[in-house]
């Protein structure tokens, strides 16, 4: 069964902290993505990766970085958390074939106080 696992369901962090969000997939997918979901704004792409050690900026990369050292793991890093980064963060993966769906993790609700 397809599985994308995010390390935390809920996180509360303080302003200025460095925050790591981890995502692991067990499907041997080439592509991995980080989105954030905010009311009225839908899902916005932060970063994506189509191979190990490769990364591409999405639509809203400012304030974030990513790491993909292994194929199955894609980490999102908030270098210095701010209150406007309070959001639902969603990780997804998909095969290299473009005409297939992406599979999502359960999401991490991050609150920055």
């Amino acid at each position, binding site marked *: 069964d397809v599985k*994308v696992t995010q390390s935390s369901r809920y996180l509360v962090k303080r302003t200025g902290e460095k925050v790591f969000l981890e995502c692991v997939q067990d499907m041997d997918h080439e*592509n991995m993505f980080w989105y954030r979901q905010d009311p*009225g704004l839908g*899902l*916005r792409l932060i970063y*994506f990766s189509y191979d190990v050690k490769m990364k591409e900026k999405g639509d809203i990369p400012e304030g974030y970085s990513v790491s993909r050292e292994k194929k199955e793991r894609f980490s999102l890093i908030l270098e210095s958390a701010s209150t406007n980064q309070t959001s639902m963060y*969603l990780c997804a993966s998909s095969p290299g074939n*473009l005409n297939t769906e992406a599979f999502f993790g359960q999401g991490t609700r991050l609150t920055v106080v």
Partner: protein
Amino acid sequence: DQQVKQNSPSLSVQEGRISILNCDYTNSMFDYFLWYKKYPAEGPTFLISISSIKDKNEDGRFTVFLNKSAKHLSLHIVPSQPGDSAVYFCAARGTDKLIFGTGTRLQVFP
């Protein structure tokens, strides 16, 4: 610049009736479209997709229609059930990433 738009933030439908969710896109290079369903505090789950070489795809109660000339797609759910109450996102594949709309919250009432 919103390349994929869902202009109705919410929709309320009676159980048993048809639900029609709409989506518009601006980039004629998009060639694959998907619908996802999302419950609160869960990740989106894939529902149905359609390639740009087709104009209709059906899976049980769910049918997606694509009108390329109008750059418009729609999701039909018939009959609607209370368990269909969720937020629905349409998405378009551009090069190697998925671009999502803002979502439509569907409420199916008895």
